[in-house]
């Protein structure tokens, strides 16, 4: 470490790697462990308590709104006769959509050997799971008789009465619950080596016990690693079709109906693209903040964020293309109801929602064509917020504008949400952030073992000209290269 010629910096290794280094700041394995684990071990910062209290207030709000709903009935929402689905279904699709990014990053990018995923996959997966939990709230509470919701499950009963398998809502039940289960298992399996690290570092008894149970006896043995990687690969292969299927099935809720504006074959791919779009936007929103607060800017680098912004640009354009295709098909099909539904979207009573959606989803992401803008942290944060808003409005436009004016003009009406609708939606953010803050506090937000796996040091030949490969302990400033 004394002379420049013998200095083995990452910069000097750049020649050997096609890509820019995924981890910056000259970090070693131990630094990574230290960086990530220390956040779960240190004293809880006051700011966390503040944020968590706020999230709990949101969660309480959600619980109160749900209690109010259960006590009085669906009428507390703004629904009416033509518009049977409103905020609840919009929010459901919105949250399920957000829940797409995590598994996509973990599974599909894993299969495609996109190594940059390692920095963000853990938090993205966590976000997925929490988003799906938020999503699952809505189909449960939106039914009129919530105490009979279990009838949607194929439970054997004395009447021999099964659910109706032709209904897309039933497919939803299976698709979303399967997706949730697989995502949860996938996330947990990925967590096992890191939890074992926490266990090994644990200083208190309670911590040792909890992490010890969760680590399931992980020792880092070769056999463990072999089984682990095989399991991870299989789960990735299992999760990959689910990423595509779950939102396709959600889109069937609409596409299978006869409602003009819903009855569209483009919905499955369009919904999947939209889901990835919104999911990535949410990941950007969360990580821009989390990496700053957690000081992991060397692990979750601007390069990572830029890659995500490219995905946002791509999927946003796909979604915009789908919007335009819908219009073309409405015109080309010659079906007047379809044509009316789409003209009504643009110029009818809900035109404001439509143009919000169009500008947020199609127009604003186009700024990401400029490299400078897509690497600008502030700018990408603003755009990601816009995309989140736009994608919520996309679901609103699809759900509400199609229903409010369908076939018979005599039943046309207008949907206005009530305070219960709005506060329930706000409350789900409380639920989401309650989970997310607990995750930030108690679990490693970056997949430590996987990040190590994509570092140059993981290359078996990295230490070849240093003899035994066991370098002398080096002193590295953990904060080196980071902005203070």
């Amino acid at each position, binding site marked *: 470490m004394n002379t420049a010629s013998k200095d083995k910096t990452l910069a000097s290794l750049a020649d050997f790697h096609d890509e820019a280094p995924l981890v910056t700041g000259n970090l070693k394995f131990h630094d990574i462990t230290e960086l990530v684990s220390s956040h779960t071990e240190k004293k809880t910062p006051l700011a966390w308590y503040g944020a968590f209290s706020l999230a709990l207030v949101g969660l309480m709000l959600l619980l109160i709104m749900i*209690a*109010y709903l259960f*006590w*009085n*009935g*669906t*009428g*507390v929402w*703004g*629904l*009416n*006769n*033509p*518009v*049977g*689905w409103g905020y609840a279904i919009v929010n459901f699709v919105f949250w399920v959509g957000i829940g797409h990014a995590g598994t996509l990053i973990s599974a599909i990018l894993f299969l495609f050997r996109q190594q940059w995923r390692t920095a963000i996959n853990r938090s993205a997966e966590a976000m997925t799971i929490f988003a799906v939990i938020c999503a699952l709230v809505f189909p449960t509470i*939106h*039914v*009129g*008789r*919530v105490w*009979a*919701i279990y*009838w*949607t499950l194929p439970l054997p009963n004395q009447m021999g*009465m*099964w*659910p*109706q398998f032709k*209904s*897309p*809502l*039933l497919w939803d*039940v299976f698709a979303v619950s399967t997706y949730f289960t697989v995502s949860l298992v996938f996330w947990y399996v990925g967590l096992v080596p890191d939890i074992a690290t926490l266990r090994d570092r644990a200083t208190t008894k309670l911590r040792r016990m909890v992490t010890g149970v969760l680590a399931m006896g992980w020792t880092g043995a070769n056999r463990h690693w072999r089984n682990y990687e095989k399991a991870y690969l299989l789960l990735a292969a299992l999760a990959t079709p689910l990423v595509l299927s779950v939102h396709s099935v959600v889109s069937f*809720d609409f596409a*299978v*109906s*006869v*409602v003009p504006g819903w009855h569209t074959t483009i919905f499955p791919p369009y919904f999947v693209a939209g889901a990835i779009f919104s999911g990535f936007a949410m990941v950007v929103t969360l990580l821009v903040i989390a990496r700053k607060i957690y000081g992991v800017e060397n692990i979750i680098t601007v390069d990572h964020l830029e890659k995500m912004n490219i995905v946002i640009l791509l999927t946003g354009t796909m979604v915009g293309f789908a919007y335009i295709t819908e219009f073309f098909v409405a015109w080309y*099909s*010659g*079906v*007047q*109801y379809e044509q*009316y539904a789409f003209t009504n979207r643009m110029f009818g*009573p809900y035109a404001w929602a439509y143009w919000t959606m169009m500008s947020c989803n199609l127009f604003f992401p186009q700024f990401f064509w400029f490299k400078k803008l897509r690497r600008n942290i502030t700018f990408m944060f603003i755009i990601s917020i816009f995309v989140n808003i736009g994608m919520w409005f996309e679901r609103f436009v699809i759900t509400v504008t199609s*229903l*409010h*004016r*369908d*076939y*018979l*003009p*005599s*039943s*046309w*009406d*207008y*949907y*206005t949400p009530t305070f219960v609708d709005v506060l329930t939606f706000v409350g789900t953010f409380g639920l989401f952030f309650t989970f997310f803050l607990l995750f930030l506090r108690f679990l490693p937000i970056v997949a430590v073992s996987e990040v190590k796996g994509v570092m140059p040091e993981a290359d078996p030949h990295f230490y070849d000209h240093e003899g035994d490969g066991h370098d002398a302990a080096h002193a590295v400033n953990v904060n080196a290269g980071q902005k203070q």
Partner: protein
Amino acid sequence: MIELPVLDDSPETGESPRNRFWRSISHLKGTDEYSRISAGEFIPGASEGPIASDATSGATRRQFIQLMGASMAMAGLTACRKPVEKIIPFTRMPEDTIPGVPVQFATAMPFRGALRPVLVESYDGRPTKIEGNPEHADSHGATSIYEQASILALYDPDRLGSVRTDSDVSDWNAFKAFVAGLPTSSRIVVLAEPTSSMTMAVVRRQMEQRFSTVRWVDYSAATCNHSALGVQAAYGRAWRTTHDVSAANVILSLDADLFGANGSDPIGAARGFAEGRDMEATGSMSRLYVVESDYSLTGGMADNRLRMKSGEIASFAAAVASAVGAWSGDAGVHASHPWVAEVAADLRRAGSTALVVAGDNQPAGVHALAAAINDRLGAVGTTVSYLSLEDSANDFEADMQAALADMNAGDVDVVLTLGVNPVYDLPGFSDAYANATHRVHVSLYDDETAGSATWTVPQTHYLEAWGDGTSKSGVMSVVQPLIAPLYADAHSDIEVIGLFATGTEMFGYDMVRATWRQQLSGTFETSWRKVVHDGFLDGSGASTARTSLSSTGVNAAVSGLGLAAVSGTEIVISADTKVFDGRFANNAWLQELPEPTTKVVWENVAKMNPSTAERLGVGSKLDGGRYLTDTVEIEVGQYRVELPVWIQPGMADDSVHVTLGYGRNIVSEREERSTNIFDLDDYTDVYGKGAVSTGVGSNVAPLASEGRIVTGSISKKASGYLVASTQDHGAIDAEHVSEQVQKRGLFRMATVDEYRANPDFVAGGEPAPLKEDWEDYPTLWQANHPKESDVMTNSNYFENQWGMVIDLNTCTGCNACVMACQAENNIQVVGKSEVARGREMHWLRMDRYFVSGDGATLEDPQMVIQPMPCQHCENAPCEQVCPVAATVHSPDGTNQMIYNRCIGTRYCANNCPYKVRRFNFFNWTKTLPGTVHMAQNPNVTVRSRGVMEKCSFCIQRIRGANKVANVENRSLRDGEVVTACQQVCPANAITFGDLANPESSVSQKRTSDRRYELLAELNIKPRVSYLGRLRNPNPNLA
């Protein structure tokens, strides 16, 4: 007397061969002491036979049951107040009575001075549903909305329950003592509605004899007797006028809403009109001209409609009369109206088959002119008949002024208001009223007049008391009670007048029978029973009067008419089409019934056309699907009323219409419901905040103090008033909607000439992208349909395939079917704010569209109405999307809702192209008062919160008929199943039946070339077909 066996365990003579159970030693030994005790152990009478000395000659079982059956039958006939002793509890079941199987009784509803014959369905002594009396010529089984809704009025929880003196609770005996103590020198004023009751006439005479001064005023503030006055002017006497619309080839309505429920004979008019429009059967169609200021249902049915201020219609009538030679003189402003010559020529061509009708609001002179025209054309005897019955033709205004003068002078001791409410609807009455010493008010409610009465006596509902009278056509009926008065103090009009007449209590039953002893020939009991059973006295219709027109009378009547142009804005006040003069205001069904043309509920509005609104600077806007309108202050004389504006296309310029019957102030004894902030029960319950009608709308009666058509000033008052309407929640742009209705082929119509040239015109109305022919898709009972599975075909029900045909050519949009459906199917009311949020529950709705284009302009559009029940699609989109199979297809082809199974995802409602499904957003039944529950049909499940509901094709009636047919081991006959909407329809516009039977009337109707299905191109195969409408406009009038 038949002896009944003793129903006790008196000591047996022979020991049981088997084990014997005993209760005490003395029982076992059979001591005398035990016998004495055990004989008296049970309720008195139960242990002793009627003839105790001859215990061995007890009645046989057969005799016993005969007696019980006869008692029950008599209980049904005579079970009013007195014969209570004969009523036997249902624990001793009479023969032929099956609990849960309803029995129907014939009776009649008094309304507008005549009886409306009805059949009332009664479950175990509880009346639940009212139908028209099918054997009565005035009904043919049809009713208007009022008969349907009157069942709810019986169970109205806001009814007055006890006699009040001042505001203290008293009782009937105290009131009896008061009346008995009145000196015969008392000067009495009686205000009572004109009635056809013969018994009332008798007791009224007795009362007039008993007291020295009785001034009887026929109180017709709301029903206004302009028609009778007009006939009196023309013929010298106020013969009752009846119209045979079916015989008419050319009809001219002068501001007359023939089909509106507030008219005098909407049932007969709609039926007759439908017969005259049967193009397929007769090859020709009548022509209806309507000249009106409002846009009424009749205007919607018109072939040619002329918008004209109500105040100027007199001139138009005079011009037509002049043109047909029925009157001569200067017709005034419309003497040379382009329509006059055309209409007069058409009327002359029709000759004796012409019919001219004037509206209630028009002054007597116009009625006299109409009578003169009819007379001149020779229509008397064909389309117009004068019965030898005299309607009350007293000049109400003059009578009332005289009575008020007496009261003001202090010359009145007792004012008796019998079922009328003058404090509410007669401005200036209150002051005079206070001068009377005793103010006796007989009313269903603790209403406005009750507030200043000294005695208030609860009135019986017509289903609770005996009465009699004649129908519109003079057929005599007995009004038979179905149930003892819900409130013991309640008494009928004849009982109260009887009390005044004799000073002692008179029982309605005895009084009516006494009257009928004079009417019936043969054995009285036999004839009486037959009348009570049939609901009317067969062959008792009034004969035709011999009439001769008095042209001087007509001239005199016309000379009182204003024939000049009406300057400024006219204000027209009429009885409401829902709550009439306010007597039905406390009926939640009627309050929530959409007004037939505006679709407004729980409100009275100032209707005006767009240009009038623009001139007045008022308007309305849609805010989040809710109508927020400006309000106007209408000032007539010294009276001012504030009303919300409703902009109705097609009304006459500068004509503002308001309706009576709102702004009631009824005091309810029920406690106001108040719940904590977390609970919405008080919000969801229309009965939760005092009386239903209190606070709904505004009272416009004061405006009518100078007549029904007045002028006054109108000014804008406020903005942002919420008006709830069941239609146009989200579409205010009439032209836009009209264009969509046209493009989508929802309502198809053609003129008679177009129809003759192209009988298949409905096919031309099919929306553009119909790729395949409708007939290419086999229907359910044809081979290869996916629904022809074994499960379906092996069912007994598969034999019938139910379907419906709705004839748009005869449907007037009178709403009777909507009301009947509500009464039959336990459809709950949700209140104004929930309707404003688009959550009304009616299973059957009437879609009203305005049609512009094709000669009609936005200012003067056509109006069409389309009934919309569940279409029972064979490929029902709702069924496929339900995750729990809560809506499924029955083997007999109806789409069924399984309420128990429904979890309320609302997906089915979203996927219903007709949007006929209704969701229970709250629990609408939970908080209903107990008496309201009594009005519900026990055969129809009451829906819980969170479930979907919709039209079931009255499945309970289908299954009821199935049961009967099954017991009798036969197939269902055509016409055996009648849906509630079909049954009530006066125009027979609804045909329901078995599509699998090619002979059935519904199958026959489906062969019509006017038949089409709505949204057929979706391939959902609706089971409801519509028959396109035909119009017969005069080609010379655009």
